[in-house]
């Protein structure tokens, strides 16, 4: 039996696209949430913080089910989305939504922890120098927290690459359309196509190792930059 490379590379490409988009969306959302929740003084943050972490503890299938209730054809948002012409069920965009919800807590937790590590004196110094809260965040907090945020990006992307449960619930398992790496491996294994399953598993492992090595390189490269031209 010959290995059909397109049956390996198509799921890989889809996985990278889904995980990449999910990482970007969750990054923006997590930074916004971390920034807002770190500043507001009310009992609300504790509850919102718990909500932001919830996807981490809920089984992905439960998340998938909730998402179907929300964006499905008869869902709360789904009806409105349908009218605008967006259909998330059984589409790769649906897989992005599923992956975004699943990876969001990892991104949020990393960003929040990294931002809390930033010395408040530095942020206060920026304020006395006339900086708005937005500028304090962009020019002081974020650059000083970038390591933690970057670690969150890596973690989220890796988790997004491996996402299975919620994706299956929402986007289904349509080869060439919504079949990501994790789904394709399961599919090949179920069908008894061991060669394809092995190929997919090796490709997945290789992609993850390259990613971690790249992250390690980027993080170590910036250490000890003493001078600025």
């Amino acid at each position, binding site marked *: 039996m010959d290995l059909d490379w397109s049956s390996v590379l198509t799921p890989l490409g889809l996985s990278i696209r889904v995980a990449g988009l999910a990482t970007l969306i969750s990054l923006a959302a997590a930074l916004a949430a971390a920034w807002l929740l770190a500043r507001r003084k009310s009992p609300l943050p504790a509850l919102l913080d718990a909500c932001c972490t919830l996807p981490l503890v809920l089984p992905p299938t439960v998340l998938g089910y909730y998402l179907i209730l929300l964006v499905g054809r008869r869902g709360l948002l789904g009806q409105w989305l349908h009218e605008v012409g967006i259909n998330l069920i059984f589409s790769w965009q649906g897989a992005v939504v599923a992956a975004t919800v699943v990876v969001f807590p990892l991104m949020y937790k990393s960003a929040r922890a990294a931002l809390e590590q930033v*010395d408040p*004196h*530095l942020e*206060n*110094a*920026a*304020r*006395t*120098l*006339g*900086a*708005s809260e*937005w*500028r304090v965040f*962009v*020019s*002081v907090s974020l*650059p*000083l927290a970038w390591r933690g945020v970057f670690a969150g990006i890596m973690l989220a992307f890796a988790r997004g690459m491996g996402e299975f449960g919620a994706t299956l619930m929402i986007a289904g398992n349509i080869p060439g359309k919504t079949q990501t790496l994790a789904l394709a491996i399961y599919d090949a294994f179920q069908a008894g196509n061991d060669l394809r399953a092995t190929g997919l598993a090796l490709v997945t492992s290789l992609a993850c190792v390259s990613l971690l090595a790249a992250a390690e390189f980027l993080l170590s490269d910036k250490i000890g*930059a*003493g*001078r*600025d*031209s």
Partner: protein
Amino acid sequence: MISLRLRKHFRNARRPFTLDVNYAVGPEQRRLALFGPSGSGKSLTLHCLAGLVRPDSGQVSLAGRILYDSASKIFVPARRRRIGLMFQDYALFPHLSVLQNVAYARSGLLPRLLNSDEKDKARAMLERLGIGHLAGVRPNALSGGQRQRAALARALNAEPELLLLDEPFSALDTLLRERLRGELLEILATLTIPAVIITHDPDDVDALATGLVLYHEGRACPVPDFRDMRPQFPSAASCLRHLQENAAVDR
């Protein structure tokens, strides 16, 4: 010039603390020292003045400009107060060069992108404080004295109307402290704006202050005639001890 009436209560701290101060100092006080033990409310007063902490009640005004008034719900945010603050640990931005640090108050959203005007102004400020050669260096490569100058340059480059110095020498060793005291005095003497200096070192008060406010457990007692009384005592420490004892009797 500076008029302060503040109440701020902290319940959640390890022990409850109340700052309750009420004093005003005139424009003749070029350099006001806030003197007292640590934990007596000096830093908190400075942070309330700078707008970094919101008091529970009271009123703060600087040269007739109301910065905070609980009755009419006025609270000018720190960025609009035009009050420079030099932090105890100098709080230089570690990810920026000295030049970018000093230019921060004048630069746009991203402090690494400076136009030539912003660069020139920051360079001129560095030259004025004698650290022009350190423009491209990161703060972590600076000595204690250089850090202090860089922090001072950064605060002054914002053209503040009042300069606050939070324990300017506490991060330095004793020998360096002696030298820098003289240097700081020279720099402060060239300024046209008043300065408020926090210290718990009597020698700092002796060398730098024209006016004095004593702090003790969240209360403040201004001593406007400190300079007139000082010659009656052999040392700054004995003078301050005497004043502190009398302030205790007043309460």
